[in-house]
């Protein structure tokens, strides 16, 4: 690991000031410290934010819930309000990583965690994300775990988070504080597609600090989070899925579908949602929606299975949720 200046911030304003445009925030460290050890990340300044008072989970006026950026993944998943009102989020968190990791991992760190692309971690491989302009060894390499949607010839990596897929389905909002003050962005616009700049992964700029994530007031959804991986637990998703469905008198009134493990960001399948809303909640509609979810898929040499897997997962989950309505 390279040497770095280790700084502790007493409050949010000081953290932003200490970080400056190049500094890195250290929350649980489960991703950043690992990448620093591999020398994929080589920050000169590391600002430890783990003691900032940002770990509360608080009700919002109007009925939503605010998750502090430093709330641990395990604590969010165990919170009674999350379990009762946002079970899709509790389930997504519980299917991520391991109990030990979830005790350290934070809301903010989970949002900003980086891809698990093997070539990104391998300093001898060409990777545009690690070194802009170097090329992408995953394109012609072993790309079984890579993207089928929204990728570019510059990068085919996927975002590895489970939590973010549930947040995308819930239409959560990310609250930030930067050198120019506070702002909020929808979580669906927080992560970026790779395009020509795969090293730019989120809208965070110049030391922006995530302070919290807001969940909107609950709705009468039936929802679920489904994750398919190479072993039953403690593995990243090959494909994952968050679905929220509101069916009344046999018609779909509202639907949200987000896919994980398929793109550089949690992928909202808006065209699939459009197939459902206003239509009869029957298998024909679910088939159309499942097909629409992967209609734009562009598989690589080794990951064509992901499109079919995603299609079947969407269909099966819709059938199950409609059965509960």
């Amino acid at each position: 690991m390279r040497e770095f200046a280790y700084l502790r911030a007493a409050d949010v304003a000081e953290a932003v000031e200490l970080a400056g445009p190049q500094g890195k925030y250290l929350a649980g460290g489960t991703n950043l410290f690992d990448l620093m050890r591999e020398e994929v990340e080589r920050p000169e300044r590391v600002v430890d934010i783990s003691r900032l008072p940002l770990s509360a989970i608080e009700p919002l006026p109007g009925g939503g819930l605010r998750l502090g950026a430093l709330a641990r993944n395990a604590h969010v998943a165990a919170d009674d309000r999350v379990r009762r009102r946002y079970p899709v989020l509790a389930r997504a968190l519980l299917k991520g990583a391991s109990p030990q990791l979830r005790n350290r991992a934070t809301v903010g760190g989970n949002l900003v965690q980086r891809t698990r692309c093997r070539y990104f971690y391998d300093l001898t491989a060409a990777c545009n994300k690690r070194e802009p302009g170097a090329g992408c060894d995953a394109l012609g390499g072993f790309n079984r775990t890579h993207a089928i949607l929204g990728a570019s010839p510059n990068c085919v990596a996927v975002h590895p988070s489970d939590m973010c897929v549930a947040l995308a389905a819930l239409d959560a909002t990310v609250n930030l504080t930067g050198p120019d003050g506070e702002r909020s962005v929808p979580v669906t616009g927080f992560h970026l597609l790779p395009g020509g700049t795969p090293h730019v992964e989120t809208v965070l700029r110049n030391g922006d600090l995530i302070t919290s994530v807001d969940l909107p007031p609950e709705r009468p959804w039936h929802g679920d989070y489904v994750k398919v991986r190479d072993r039953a637990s403690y593995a990243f998703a090959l494909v994952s899925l968050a679905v929220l469905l509101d069916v009344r008198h046999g018609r779909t009134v509202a639907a949200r579908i987000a896919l994980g493990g398929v793109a550089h960001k949690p992928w909202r399948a808006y065209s699939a949602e459009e197939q459902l809303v206003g239509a009869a909640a029957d298998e024909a509609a679910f088939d159309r929606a499942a097909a629409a979810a992967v209609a734009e898929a562009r598989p690589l040499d080794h990951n064509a299975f992901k499109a079919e897997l995603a299609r079947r997962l969407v269909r099966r989950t819709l059938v199950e949720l409609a059965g509960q309505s």
Partner: protein
Amino acid sequence: MSGHIPVRLHVNGQAHDLSLDPRVTLLDCLREHLGLTGTKKGCDQGACGACTVLADGERINSCLTPAVQCDGMEIVTIEAMANDELGTRVQDAFLAHDGLQCGYCTSGQICSVVAMLAEHRAGRPSAVTEDLTGPAPLTDVEIRERMAGNLCRCGAYNGIVAAIREVTRT
């Protein structure tokens, strides 16, 4: 440039005032600086659980935790389990049920079990908990999922589950 950072660690009830390079993990600090070699290094990247210790009562991977972040925390390692009533029962049950073969993962497993039982008592759910609104009975499926963060290359899993079941019965 890293410089050394003053850190006070409470390990197994004893305070240590250290001056640490911020690159040192809690795992290396325990093993190399404090001579507590019961905690093991398997993968050094959060993927196996051999390095599991308790920090302020919660199980964590000490290989991914910078020691400077543990300033002021209470750390409990396998070395303290001999003086802990539950820890001793878990150790005895591992012996009685062949919950190990080579033993490399065992100290992490045992720390993990002690914390897992506390999490369960506190009502925390797991990925296999069907009803998120109530307490989950500690079935074998629950035990396996709640212990998924500790791999065992010798495959002693059946013995480990049997040991945990015995501890929860008594």
